[in-house]
Each structure stands twice: as C-alpha cells, then as structure tokens.
C-alpha cells in the first residue's frame, strides 16, 4: 500500500483529482482510498488530502502521517512548515512549479523530485489556474501507480477533452531528478 499526501489550495481541484485516481485504481481492479482533510475550505485556502493505493483492501481510514509521496499543487505551499512533514526516507515529491529544485527547499530525505509547470499548462489551455489534471499526468508518469490509459479515460469522461490534453502535457513535460542531498 502506498500512502500519499496532497497539498493544494481551495479551487485547484485537489479533491476531484484524488477521486479520479481512486476511480482509476478501482476500475483497474485494484484498491484506492481518498480522504479529504476537511477544514474550513475556501477558494485559495491551503487544503490537503490523503490518498492510498494498493493491491489489497485498504482498511485503515486515518490520515497519512508518513507519506511516501507528496503531490504539491502550488509551490508557495512549500513555505508552510507542515507541507514536507513526515515524508518517508527516499520519498517522492511532485510539485507544480516553474522553479528549480534548489529553490523549493526540498527536504533531505526526499529521493526524487519531479517538477511540472501545471499552472502554465492550465493557463495555456483554459486561461485559468486549475492545475489538477496536468498534475495527474505528472503523477502517472512519475509513479506508475495508475494505469495511464484508464486515468486518461476517467479524466476525459469527468472533465472533457481539454483536460485530457492537460494531463498528457503534464505527463510529457514533467522533469524528474534525483534529489541532490
């Protein structure tokens, strides 16, 4: 079982993106679970959620404290003390940013850092910052945890063709590097 934590801002589609990942996992015959953290969620406020994927039924329904993977929808969130909290040794960080890894205060325990300009993709395609589907593309590429074809089909049926394009762009534009410790 993989435990993943997502960080974003209200309005960026964190919840929807996570639901699509779980749907894709379930459609592929696997197991997935997503719990949104429910605060007083407003457009722009920091939000987060907990995602689990696995080959066995997922029984626990508690928050994720020691994620193997962090999916960060907004690079301004790296300044929050809780964003990198509990990341496992050699864990993966996927972040929506134009910045380089050195500017993102990547913690030392991170193994890989993947950076994708999901906002740029979103602005180009939709004229606004809804980076979630581009992030999903990057997520699929970096982790291989979901079936890429099924994920694309889910994105298309949920959001339409343009979002499929965004996912594909995210998939191909993400740059993956080992964390320089």
């Amino acid at each position, binding site marked *: 079982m993989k435990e993943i934590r997502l960080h974003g801002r209200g309005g960026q589609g964190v919840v929807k993106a*996570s*639901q699509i990942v*779980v*749907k894709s*996992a*379930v*459609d592929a015959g696997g*197991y*997935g*679970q*997503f*719990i*949104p953290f*429910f605060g007083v969620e407003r457009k722009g406020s920091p939000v987060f959620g907990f995602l689990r994927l696995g080959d066995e039924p*997922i*029984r*626990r*329904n*508690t*928050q994720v*404290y020691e994620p193997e993977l962090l999916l960060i929808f907004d690079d301004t969130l790296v300044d929050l003390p809780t964003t990198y909290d509990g990341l496992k040794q050699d864990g993966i960080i996927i972040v929506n940013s134009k910045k380089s890894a050195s500017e993102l205060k990547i913690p030392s325990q991170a193994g890989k850092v993947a950076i994708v300009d999901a906002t740029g993709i979103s602005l180009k395609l939709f004229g606004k910052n809804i980076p979630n589907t581009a992030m999903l593309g990057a997520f699929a590429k970096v982790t291989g945890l979901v079936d890429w074809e099924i994920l694309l089909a889910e994105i298309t049926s949920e959001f339409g063709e343009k979002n499929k394009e965004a996912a594909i762009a995210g998939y191909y534009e993400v740059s993956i590097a080992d964390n320089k410790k």
Partner: protein
Amino acid sequence: MKIKAMTGNTTAAIAASLCRPDLIAAYPITPQSSVAEYLSELVHSGELQTNYVTTESEHSVMSVIQGAACAGGRTFTATSGQGLALMYEPYFQMSTMRLPMVMAIVTREMISPCTVWSGQQDAMSVRDAGWLQVYVENNQEIMDMIIQGYMITEHEDVLIPINVCYDGFYLSHLVEGVDVPSQKEVDAFLPPVHFNHAILDPDNPMAVDSLTSGEVLTRYRKGHLEAMVKTLDVIEEVDKKFAKSFGRSYGGAIEEYKCDDADIVLVAIGGMTGTARDAVDMARDKGIKAGLIKLRFVRPFPTDRIANALKGKKAFAVVDRSVCFGWNAGPMYTEVRAALINGDDKYSHFSAIGGLGGADISIKHMTSVIEKLESVKSKPGQHDTLWLMKEF
C-alpha cells in the same frame, strides 16, 4: 454488480434509492449535505421516482417522514449532529409509534465548542430514544446496511426504525470502491414495504397516538423492549439472507477479529475499526496476542455475544469516539462493562476516548491502546481512561 469508487455519502444516497423509497425528506447539514444533494440529482434527473421533500428544518424532515409512514410509506433521510438534536422531538415519536424507516446518521461531534466535524456524540446521545442503531466500518457496509436496514426495520417482529451510523468525513467524504448491487438484485432481496399497525386511513379510521394512561403506556414500552430483544435474532437472520444474495456477511450484531486465541481485546466501533484491524495485525507481528471486537449494533445491545467473545480474555479496552458525561469514560465502555456483569472473569479494562470533533484516530493511537492493554493485562480492575490526543 459493479465496483465503483464513491464517497460514503454517495453510497448512502444510492443505497437508499435502490430500496425504492416512497418518500424522502432531507435538510442539508455538514457533513451529510451531499446525501441530500445527490438524492436531489437522482430525483431531478428522473432516475429516482420518489416524493422528495426539501423541508425548512430537520424537525420537519422527521415530521414529514412520520406522516408518510403513517400512510404506509417507505421513507429515508440522513442527518448529522445538530440536525439530529433538532429532530429529537419527532425522532423519539417515530420509534415509539413503532414506524419503520432507515435513517443514516453521518456522525458528527456536538456543539459546544463550535464544530462541524466528525465524532459519534450525536448518535450516542440518542441511543435511548428507542431506535435501532448500527455503526458501520466502510462505504461497502453503508451500502449493505441501508439495504439490510429496511429488511430489519420492516420485519414484523421488529417494526422499529433504524439508524445506519457512519463517520462524518472519515467515511462520508472518503472515496473507495463499493460493490453496487443492481436494482434487480435489491428488488429480489427486499420485498415491498407492508405494515398496518398505525395507519391514517379514512376507510379504516383510527386514532393514532391517542392520549394514553400510564398503565397502557407501560405496556407499549414493555412491548418495545421485547421487540428490541427479538431484533437481535432478526439481525443475524437478515445478515445470513444477505450473505446468500450478495456474498457479504458482517457477522451479525458484532464481529470478532482474531479473538479466538487473544489475551487482550480491543473493542472498536464505526470507521475506526479498519484502523484497529491494521493495529491488531501489527501487534500480532510483534507476538502480542491481540484481538478485536467490532461493535456493530448498539441498539439492541448485543450483551450475550459480547460476554461470550470476551470470556476467558485477560484484558479489554473500548475505544469510544464520544464521551459519557458523568463516567469519565466512553459510553460503549460503560455498556460493554455492564454486559459482563454475569461472568466470573476478572478483567483488566479501561476506556479509551479519541477522534472527537474531527480529530483523527491513527494507527499509533490504536497501537497505544494495545500497548496499555499489554501492560495492564495481569492487573485486574479498571485502569485510567486513555485519551487519544496530541500532546500540547
């Protein structure tokens, strides 16, 4: 059947619609609101043909439903926390009029302090209002118990309304795969509603709820309690029938997990049970003989089954997601203890309380309960209440 990923609230709405309710009344309240919303979508799209009444309050929700039930209808609603509290007046009347229905309680902490988040204080606070209450572990069980719920509540030996209680946010907003039965399968399992003990009908006039003397009222209460006891058998019977039709069984009023050879037993209720299973397995890996009782039905309280499951064990702890004011303990702890009064065992035992107001019950919390059980198992008697909380 098809496995689909969905939230607990969507699951509840689909389950209710599969049971072909005549009337649904609902009022939005966090964290239940998406049940009301999704049911509206089903009705507005034409997928669900029911009388859907969007009232001005939960008090009226239960009242509209009571009226529909008094005309012989199958009904559904869902609520949470303050909504349940506001509903209390017709809620109590619903059960004491012995009108069958299924109502989901998306459990929520009670105010004050101001909160909208998870906890079981709302449902626990009304456990003596004459309803049946089942607490479920995951979204699949939400689906299955709403369907089973109608069979139980409408059973001629029961005729008591039932609450299917599931954790706010930790299940209501959790997305996971759910095996969704087809309409055909549910129709084959669940017969149409039929009851006629309290019906307003010009062709057969009667006064429903006439003024009643204490002597007669006592007779009604006695009958209600006796029906509760009979319900314990109906629960097991319906669970078996359900297993036959759908291939899933929940073990009836309680489920035992790795209890057979256990020294110490954790008693969990609701969504936290899954987390407890993982914690028990982790403890087993370390050689600790831990077991788990999943307390499913709280009303009727499965006294005998709990006593049997704990027979010969050294220690137990009950993890409550609510408090019992006046006991410095959780409510289920007090009731589990009461269930053991007839046995000879000298247990070590304590109450654990956590997950209030949206706080998490983590694997670490469950492990801390197991560790405490290990350390006190040879010291019979009650030990201090363990509060599962962050240290400030």
